[in-house]
């Protein structure tokens, strides 16, 4: 008996520091709580979204009219390079890691992430990496301006890098290590910490897509780290990986880069699919159509992403057999992606739909992502790609798959879960205004870029021939409206955290949401510690199809 009493004493004492967050600002530095770290990731990503967005505004301002108006060409090229790096590695990827941190433990009934201290470390390494990258803006010679792909020999030449190259490379190393640690944490959480009642095929799709994304991250981030390390040794240690005079080949870099780069684009889109598959059923008031096919489609897309990389480089010189192989392999991706689009549509079919802001953003995602997918199919045709390569057509394509897809879904996720996290309802009127301004302006911004690309306007140039003037001006106007509209989102996030409409939200927030996910069975706002005892049953509404 005495042993038991002693144990209890000890236990109480041990639990003391677990009652709530630490006091003061230091809480955010030392926190190991998945909700705190999720918040940090999301706020950091939001900040970077505005930093990267400001760079886009510089680009659109310069392209408003032909001729050089505001910035010199080297700085313009720094802006295109840094805009891409900041948006990819500072905004979209961390935002999804933030959502994973918040939602995965809540959705699978786990008390926290598997490795909380490593979780804290991945976040702060991300901050260090991005700061290192941002510091290059203030260096002699400016930030890297050879494009975010860092192609040699361009990126190795003094005129394109100044002193920035090693900093950019070390920043990529830090960002890579941070993502790999985040991915390991997510896999360990999902595989080891699910509520006992939850089998793999009971998991919400957001959890599934993140599990697969995490494997992609572990597989390709190290390859990118290797490629930039080769750049570093070529530049400073006289190796000749990419130096033709020493027997190297710059085309090799493109192969290694895109072996990373193609899975990387799916790292940004698969969690997007997961969030869309979570939101659409709630507002259609129907279970997700084709749960199992969604899981398999995600896995197929992930697998295919490894074997299609050279479609990014059809024009660099490849044997015909290679062009054909990469062309057909790329087209196959349209099959699982099509399965997903049809499943989302079928989920909405005859549903009792309502159109709150998260649903509006999700529907816009389905429509506009499909358009981005179609232009992707056009470019998968190798002979056509010779026409589209390095023009504004590709710029329009990948912005359609990233902005009205990943970014819109991140917005939707914000509107969808903020009431749960904060216990406050956001202002629906401003939310709707934000949606309509965004969805209209994003099309004014990017749709004309298809025309510019087909007419032959090259990307990454600060000045252009006058026949491109009109559509560029329209695109820039769309860009300014889109950029300004996002300030509404910033306001809504601030307002909701501070109390929102003052309306008391219920535990499930959205009608019948508790049928769709475990997180909606918890109180609103979500307490600091949740699922200290795992839930005994898991909602099966979202997987009805398979049972």
């Amino acid at each position, binding site marked *: 008996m005495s042993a038991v009493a002693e144990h209890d004493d000890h236990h109480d004492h041990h639990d003391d520091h677990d009652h709530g967050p630490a006091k003061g600002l230091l809480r955010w530095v030392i926190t190991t709580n998945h909700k705190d770290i999720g918040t940090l990731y999301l706020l950091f990503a939001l900040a970077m979204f505005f930093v990267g967005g400001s760079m886009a505004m510089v680009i659109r301002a310069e392209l408003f009219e032909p001729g050089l108006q505001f910035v010199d060409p080297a700085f313009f090229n720094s802006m295109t390079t840094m805009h891409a790096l900041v948006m990819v590695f500072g905004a979209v990827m961390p935002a999804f890691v933030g959502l994973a941190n918040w939602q995965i433990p809540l959705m699978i009934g786990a008390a926290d992430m598997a490795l909380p201290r490593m979780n804290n470390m991945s976040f702060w390494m991300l901050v260090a990496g991005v700061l290192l990258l941002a510091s290059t803006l203030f260096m002699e010679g400016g930030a890297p301006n050879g494009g975010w792909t860092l192609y040699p*020999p361009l990126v190795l030449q003094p005129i394109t890098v100044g002193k920035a190259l090693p900093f950019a490379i070390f920043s990529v190393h830090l960002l890579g290590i941070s993502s790999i640690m985040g991915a390991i944490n997510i896999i360990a959480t999902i595989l080891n910490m699910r509520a006992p009642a939850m089998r793999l095929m009971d998991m919400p799709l957001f959890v599934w897509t993140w599990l697969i994304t995490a494997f992609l991250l572990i597989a390709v981030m190290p390859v990118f780290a290797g490629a930039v390390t080769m750049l570093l040794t070529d530049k400073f240690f006289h190796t000749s990986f990419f130096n033709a005079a020493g027997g190297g080949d710059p085309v090799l870099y493109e192969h290694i880069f895109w072996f990373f780069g193609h899975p990387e684009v799916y790292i940004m889109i698969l969690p997007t699919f997961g969030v869309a598959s979570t939101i659409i059923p709630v507002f259609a008031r129907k279970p997700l159509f084709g749960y199992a096919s969604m899981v398999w489609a995600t896995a197929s897309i992930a697998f295919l992403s490894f074997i299609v990389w050279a479609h990014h480089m059809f024009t660099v010189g490849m044997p015909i057999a290679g062009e054909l192989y990469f062309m057909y392999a790329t087209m196959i991706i349209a099959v699982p992606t099509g399965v997903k689009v049809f499943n989302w549509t079928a989920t909405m079919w005859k549903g009792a739909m309502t159109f709150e802001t998260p649903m509006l953003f999700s529907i816009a995602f389905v429509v506009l992502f499909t358009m981005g997918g179609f232009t992707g199919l056009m470019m998968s045709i190798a002979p056509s790609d010779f026409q589209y390569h390095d023009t504004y057509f590709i710029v329009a394509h990948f912005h359609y798959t990233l902005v009205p897809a990943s970014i819109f879904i991140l917005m939707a996720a914000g509107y969808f879960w903020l009431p749960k996290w904060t216990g406050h309802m956001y202002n629906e009127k401003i939310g709707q205004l934000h949606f309509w301004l965004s969805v209209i302006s994003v099309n004014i911004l990017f749709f004309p870029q298809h025309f510019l690309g087909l007419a032959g306007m090259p990307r990454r140039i600060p000045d252009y021939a006058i026949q491109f003037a009109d559509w560029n001006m329209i695109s820039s106007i769309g860009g300014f409206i889109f950029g300004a509209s996002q300030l509404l989102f910033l306001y809504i996030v601030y307002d909701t955290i501070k109390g929102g409409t003052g309306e008391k939200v219920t535990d499930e927030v959205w009608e019948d949401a508790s049928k769709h996910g475990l997180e909606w069975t918890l109180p609103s706002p979500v307490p600091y510690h949740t699922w200290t005892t795992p839930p005994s049953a898991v909602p099966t509404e979202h997987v009805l199809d398979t049972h």
Partner: protein
Amino acid sequence: MSEELSKKHTKLVRILVFVAVAMFGFGYALVPIYDVLCEWKWIERDRPDDIKQVSEATYKIDLDREITVEFITTLNESTPMEFYPEVKQLKVHPGEYHTVNFYAENKANKVMVSRAIASFSPALTSSYFEKTQCFCFSEQTFQPKEIKIMPMRFVINPDLPVSYKTITLSYTFFDNTDKSVNK
């Protein structure tokens, strides 16, 4: 965290870290894999190493066809040289031997080892463009301010598919002084 769960985490994390490290190695392994794949016969591309010396063979001169051969010269980064062909363009019949001189001058006050790397456009013509003599076969050592007139003798194999009318041959001189073993 229970002991058992902690063990499960350790085991999984070990595997995942191993995968990450192995993938870093795989990035480097792609370098030799790429070289091996490029040797495959059906991968038709010109690599600097392919541009080898061939012995002078006699071909039947095809007077019905005329191929325009263009010469382009480039200096990599800030290689301190002057480098240009004595003729920029030549009309030749397949099977006919020609010699073109290239002018090269070391503008620096130091010994320089440099290497010219050839590149063909269209790339698939490279295997029909046979060189019996070229400065590009090996590294060239220049004394300070030395001027060299460097010949390049070539023939176009008459098997060249008829669809090719123009071949552009580009040479880039790389300053290899720091990296060369022939210093």
